[in-house]
């Protein structure tokens, strides 16, 4: 029966995948930089939907919050600050298009054949519907992972050199947070306006 084989998960996957890819391609072929930013927002937002479908709720929300709500607002700020009419749409030479499309097409072909080459990746998990809600709660585990304790691995010491549950990410987490702080301070320092000093100097 047609209805019995019907599967919302696949349908939503197709929907979000088409949105993601479609808007990415629309972004590629759009000349107007503001339209590009808009398509990028939609594409990244739809890929957050793919994250939710794969069971990565926290990462999906993070994608919406940091990527779409933070990084892209910053990007649009940049676009609006530099959007003089002559920079809004800059055409690419057709030779470059041909070159890029040929190279990109061959890379895509390579990646697509690789994606379907491994048999283990090709069939989905047939028991996906049996995964309980309790098992899909990963937020606490992610948080504990960042503090260095892998509560999801307490019973599975797959590597004998590791203490069970002790392959956390405390050090990378600290490094990344310090890195982010330094980078943001540096970016604010670099982007601050210096024009006043130079322009008054030039005027004098």
């Amino acid at each position, binding site marked *: 029966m047609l*209805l*019995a084989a*019907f*599967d*919302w998960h696949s349908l939503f996957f197709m929907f979000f995948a088409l949105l993601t890819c479609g808007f990415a391609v629309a972004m590629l072929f759009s000349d*107007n930089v*503001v*339209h590009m930013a*808009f398509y990028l*927002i939609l594409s990244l*937002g739809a890929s957050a939907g793919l994250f939710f479908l794969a069971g990565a*709720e*926290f990462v999906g*929300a*993070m994608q*919406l*919050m940091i990527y*779409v*709500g*933070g990084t*892209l*607002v910053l990007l*649009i*700020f940049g676009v*609006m600050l530099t*959007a003089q009419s002559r920079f809004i749409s800059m055409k690419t030479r057709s030779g470059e298009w041909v070159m890029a499309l040929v190279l990109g097409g061959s890379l895509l072909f390579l990646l697509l054949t690789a994606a379907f080459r491994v048999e283990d990746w090709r069939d989905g998990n047939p028991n996906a519907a*049996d995964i*309980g*809600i*309790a*098992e*899909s*709660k*990963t*937020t*606490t*585990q992610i948080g*504990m992972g960042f*503090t*260095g*304790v892998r*509560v999801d691995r*307490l019973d599975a010491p797959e590597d004998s050199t590791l*203490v069970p*549950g*002790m392959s*956390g990410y*405390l*050090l990378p987490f600290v490094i990344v947070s310090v890195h982010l702080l330094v980078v943001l301070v540096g970016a604010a320092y670099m982007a601050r306006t210096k024009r006043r000093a130079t322009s008054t100097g030039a005027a004098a």
Partner: protein
Amino acid sequence: MAEFFHTTCSLPTPLAYLVAAIIHCVLIIHVVAVGALIFIWLERKVSGRIQDRLGPTRVGGAFGWLQTLADGIKLIAKEDITPKDADWMLFKAAPYVGFAASYCAYIALPFSDGWVAQHMNTAVFFILAVLGIEVFSPILAGYASGSKWSLFGAMREAAQVVSYEVPLGMCVVVPCMICGTLNLVTIGNQQAGLFTNWLAFNDPFTFVVAVVYFTCATASVNRAPFDLAEAESELVAGFHTEYSGLRWSFFFMAEYGSMFLVSGLAAILFFGGWNGPIPIFQVLGWSESDGVLLYLARLGGCLNFLLKGTIGVVVMMWVRWTLPRLRIDQVMTTCLKYCVPIAAFGFLGALFWQVNELPTSNDLPGIGINRFEARESWVIEADQQRASRAAAVTPSPSDVPIGPIGSVEFDRVEALVMTGGAR
């Protein structure tokens, strides 16, 4: 709900899900659209009273009940004008972005115990993230209009909303930290009992944080005194100067939708959600029963929640018609020099309170529940339902694991950390 249609109405599973989804969507869109209708009327009456006038009195009876509906009909009949210099595609799309974001956030907002369109483990985070997306609507509208007023409004909006997300996030973390979850249903259920159980009264710091949250929420939905993106006296109408007709009204639906959203979030996070000040339904024992009584208890909870959200919205209106608009530098000063440090201080204070196990209002004797007994009960319930359904389909005893979820074997983890194993 899908289970209900599947078992009771014997619909096939995909169709059952479809029907359930449509019902949820229709309910939520009613909250957003009808809510906007009522709130716009309410705003006129409130502002009228504050300014010693009557507000609308004619359309639909003595109180002007139908004023907003009449306005809506007028707006539909109006011509939809696109300026010559506008970026056509973005100009058309911008209002829908804001409305869609405001609507989408309601997916994760519970209206009563278990009455939520989608149970999410990260509901708080999801709502904040989707609210953050809403900022694109004014930005794109302001840019695409091709008008100076609009662009000024858009730049102000972007700077303001992105800055206010920082203290807002810090305030939201505090109740999540106390409850140990990001799930709004669980957070709400942990505040059952007398009103002393509400998280705002948990300790002095959480009360401060609740006030800061409400300030930041007002700013992040662009209400006066933080409505610099519109600023009628300076920018004509800010980012929606060039809009007209129904497209313009979408901005307003989005604004009132997100106003109720942040008020509802405040109600759940700090003011007990669907639990009334006195736990009538618990005393009667309705919340533990099933069938009609449980339904009635939850309906009462839903009314409670709607009332609390509406009170939040009315407070926002009261503030709007009382305080003068701030300048843009004052807005930034409020955010960066006051809200962020106070929120950080409140967060550290609440953390200190938790770590040292100082007495909280939850410890008071009386009607109430231990906060941690209510944790994540819905997960266990849902898995039990799943297991029983699996057992009904296949006669063999199912071995679906049902385990404690919130307490992730804390003893073992604690032992590991104590021995210095954490790297």
